[in-house]
């Protein structure tokens, strides 16, 4: 298996323009991660704000919304991502052609990561001192305005590390989309491996995943440092 490793590298990465396949897979992995992260953060933000408000609200609509959010969080966090993905593809979106399954994957990953993001964002909002909301309201600012201008900016700073972790998890989790034959980078690797029976494709993508994660960690650290400038 390890004979002629140099030749194997060549065969598995460069020959037959195989690097182009990795590139295509990488593109899909990145697209899936980015789109799902955006969906996840939007859902997470909405669910978190809904849950934070429902606690003190007497509005029956809020109570109903709160129950819906609870069901969403319980179901999504209580079932495996893999099962959710398969259900999305083969139970809910049965009429979507195989070539378009990338979008089903994005939706499934986005909805899944939204549940985790919601809990992270909620804890971030609740970690902001209660006096901040009171100070905002005492100046005549509305609840929404205080939320946007005072609470959320501080919450974001609190939750950035956890949210970054979630993004990293999301990136790695997209690898299971190869079960839907979505041509992400993992799918590409298994395809090439099935031709060459070499360890190189899997090792290659492991290195690529690792590189992206390290890049994300680096970016996050920079962002954190910029956001904490008011603390120095």
């Amino acid at each position, binding site marked *: 298996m390890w004979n002629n490793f140099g030749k194997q590298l060549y065969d598995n990465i460069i020959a037959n323009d195989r690097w182009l396949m990795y590139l295509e897979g990488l593109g899909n992995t990145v697209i899936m991660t980015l789109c799902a992260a955006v969906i996840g953060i939007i859902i997470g933000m909405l669910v978190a704000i809904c849950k934070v408000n429902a606690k003190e609200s007497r509005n029956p609509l809020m109570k109903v919304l709160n129950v819906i959010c609870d069901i969403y969080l319980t179901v999504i966090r209580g079932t495996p991502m893999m099962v959710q993905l398969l259900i999305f593809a083969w139970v809910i979106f049965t009429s979507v052609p195989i070539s378009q399954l990338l979008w089903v994957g994005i939706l499934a990953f986005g909805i899944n990561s939204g549940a985790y993001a919601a809990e992270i964002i909620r804890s971030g909002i609740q970690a902001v*001192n209660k*006096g*901040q909301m*009171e*100070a*905002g*309201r*005492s*100046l*005549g*600012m*509305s609840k929404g*305005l205080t939320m946007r*201008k*005072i609470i959320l*900016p*501080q919450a974001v*700073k609190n939750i950035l590390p956890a949210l970054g972790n979630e993004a990293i998890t999301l990136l790695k989790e997209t690898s299971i989309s190869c079960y839907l034959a979505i041509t992400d980078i993992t799918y590409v690797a298994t395809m090439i491996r099935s031709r060459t029976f070499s360890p190189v494709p899997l090792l290659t993508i492991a290195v690529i995943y690792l590189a992206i994660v390290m890049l994300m960690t680096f970016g996050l650290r920079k962002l954190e440092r910029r956001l904490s400038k*008011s*603390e120095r």
Partner: protein
Amino acid sequence: MSDNVENMENREFNYAEDDLICVEHLEKKFTTYSKEVHAVNDVSVTVKRGEIIAIIGPSGSGKSTFLRCLNLLEVPTAGKVIVEGVDITDKSVDIDKHRQKMGMVFQQFNLFPHLTVMENITLAPIRVKKLSKEEAEQKALELLERVGLKDRAQSYPRQLSGGQQQRIAIVRALAMEPDIMLFDEPTSALDPEMVGEVLDVMRSLANTGMTMVVVTHEMGFAREVASRVLFMDEGKIAEQGAPADVFDHPQNERTISFLSKVL
């Protein structure tokens, strides 16, 4: 607000021209687990324009809760709070409008840590009063000058001492040009050497004729600056009157015992 509307509301509540706040039978109950706490128990008070009211009393007597009911940070369980002729406990009232006219200063300052001093002060005037940025900053600088912190406009709250933070918090409230200022133990979280600078600012504010309601443990300040002192105990106003009367000739037994401990 047009004069007609105001007059009608005045009549409804027998609201005298110079009554700024009229509190009628205010009550606030908290329920924690099985225990019911009567934090404020049937309090009625009128605050006239220009008055400086000091609220004193033992801890847990409901002073802060009472003060927080005045701008509805705490929602009363019963009673009315009539501000400039409008009952703000009425659910149909736009409370944000009234809070603009009621500045509040907190024990813990509650400055916004992610914003500079200037942004702290101008955020509400720009967003709520719709002042232009230039106007708001101009005004903020004037106010900062008054409290001697003009050079700290670009600092972040964390870079300031407690006394400086509290002075900024006062400026932040004043920037909305309120008709009344509420102070919730403004010096209790300060190191002793910083209490003076904050009291000085409050004293000069009192001299401008601002209506103030101050919950405080600073008896010297209350005696010197207040036009009326309220002594609260167990959610009720046990005694009130001019500072000289309350401090030198207290009538109520609880007032006597409290003052003997703190003076």
